[in-house]
């Protein structure tokens, strides 16, 4: 059963140096403040996994927590490049970053295999793409029934998956709705699960399109209102598009970035406990 705890304690206990860590949320419900807590606790050598590494992973990579990135699209949506990600890949700053790169369909199916506790997933994909030549987690398999050659992708089973959701009850059952991304699969694929929520409630009433992740597949729940900013939580906040634009000049320069992180993330006065 999930324990209700603080974000600081959840990260301290459940995220270790060298772990494979997935922060999921497809544009919506991105667990940004959990990423900041991982930065503050100075985790190192993480393999970061995420379909769409955007601002939160730009920040984590720029602060040196990651050794490797597993992903399928790494940009600032609607704005342009992730400058810290690019600096790490192109110049090895602050530390070199290994990449394992997929398509969205491939990544999504890696989580599906992980959630199903299967060794791999099958899809029609990567035909003729250079991606297949460069990843050890993309291969092919022959259908035993038709003989068709199909793509196979290795299961993704993170040590820790972190998501942000709208609500949890006091037993730690988690409810989320709106764009659901790949969160259910990422949670069920993981060994340990941290969920930050906008709100703790006595009872989870029904919402259109909502799913519930039962308490017994979640390790820790922490209430972190606004934990997805500059992403959003449908029903609670809207996407801060202006911040995504503002991130471009902040992140372009190493010193500007470092100063911004010191003021907005490392400053103890801003810590969410």
């Amino acid at each position, binding site marked *: 059963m999930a324990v209700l705890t603080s974000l600081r304690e959840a990260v301290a206990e459940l995220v270790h140096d060298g772990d494979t860590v997935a922060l999921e949320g*497809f*544009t*919506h419900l991105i667990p940004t403040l959990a990423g900041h807590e991982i930065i503050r606790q100075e985790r190192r050598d993480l393999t970061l996994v995420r*379909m*769409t590494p955007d601002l939160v992973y730009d920040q984590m990579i720029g602060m040196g927590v990651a050794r490797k990135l597993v*992903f*399928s*699209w*790494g*940009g600032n*949506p*609607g*704005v342009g*490049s*992730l400058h810290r*990600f*690019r600096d790490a*890949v*192109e110049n090895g700053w602050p530390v070199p970053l290994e990449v394992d*790169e*997929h*398509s*969205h*369909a491939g990544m*999504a*199916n890696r*989580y*599906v295999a992980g959630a199903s506790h299967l060794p791999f997933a099958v*899809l*029609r*994909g*990567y*035909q*003729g*793409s*250079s*991606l297949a030549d*460069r990843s050890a987690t993309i291969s092919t398999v022959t259908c035993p029934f038709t003989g*068709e*050659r199909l793509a196979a992708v290795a299961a993704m089973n993170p040590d820790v998956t972190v998501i942000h959701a709208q609500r949890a009850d006091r037993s730690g059952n988690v409810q989320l709705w*709106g*764009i*659901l*991304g*790949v969160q*259910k*699969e990422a949670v069920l694929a993981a060994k340990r699960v941290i969920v930050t929520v906008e709100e703790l409630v006595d009872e989870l009433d029904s919402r259109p*399109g909502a799913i519930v992740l039962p308490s017994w597949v979640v390790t820790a729940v922490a209430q972190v209102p606004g934990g997805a900013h500059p992403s*959003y939580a*449908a029903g609670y906040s*809207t*996407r*801060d*598009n*202006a911040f*995504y634009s503002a991130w471009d000049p902040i992140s372009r320069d190493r010193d500007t970035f470092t100063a911004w992180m010191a003021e907005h993330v490392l400053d103890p006065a801003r810590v969410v406990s």
Partner: protein
Amino acid sequence: MTAAGQQLGWSPDEMMAVASARALADATTCFVGIGLPSTAANLARRTTNPGLVLIYESGTIGAKPQVLPLSIGDGELADTADAVVPVPEIFNYWLQAGRCDVGFLGAAQVDRFGNINTTLIGRDGQPDLRLPGAGGAPEIAAHAGKVLITVRHSVRVFVERLGFVTSVGFGRGDGDRERLGMRGAGPTQVLTDLGVLEPDPATSELTLTACHPGVTVEQVREATGWPLKFADDVATTPAPTAEELAVLRELQERTREAHRAGS
């Protein structure tokens, strides 16, 4: 803006969006990439094809946004959608299963066989310039009934051969799609700010079939990084109508207002 566009009262980007929206006139469902494709698809819903079903990879099916989304997961898309499904489902059940007529993609580079690079520009796979990567494009390019590509025309974009093939158009030429087991027809049109390229029916090589008003064949060839072949009878794209321009400009203005207001 070209001299012709200035005289005639529209920009090359506007001509590109209008031509792209017209290319969607007969589609039922369109799997939409963000940026230029999304602009064109939303213009199509307001002009050539009001019933067009827009599918974004965030899992929003039948989205009817009032303003252009900045990301593929803007709340506007979910709030206006007929259905919102999880990401594994959108790729497996809807795209891979062949339920999308048209896939509409942007690109960083396009080669003469309509292959797309959105991953990196460099040598031996080492990035001098790191781009965002594949996203949904490799499987959109494979499974959509047909693919439209829209991108601004330049020699940096239209290259003879890609250093990295993210998403396959026609591979190295005719028959490659069948050999690779790809079920969709591949890129049938590349719509740029200068004109329209289409695959040669015999060789699958991209060939200039239309120039936008005021643009010459020579201009397009100079903006292309290989000796671009052109059709015997290169057409001239019909100019944007006053209504098409008014709808596009109103949509873009409303989008600017909304994203400003949200700040």
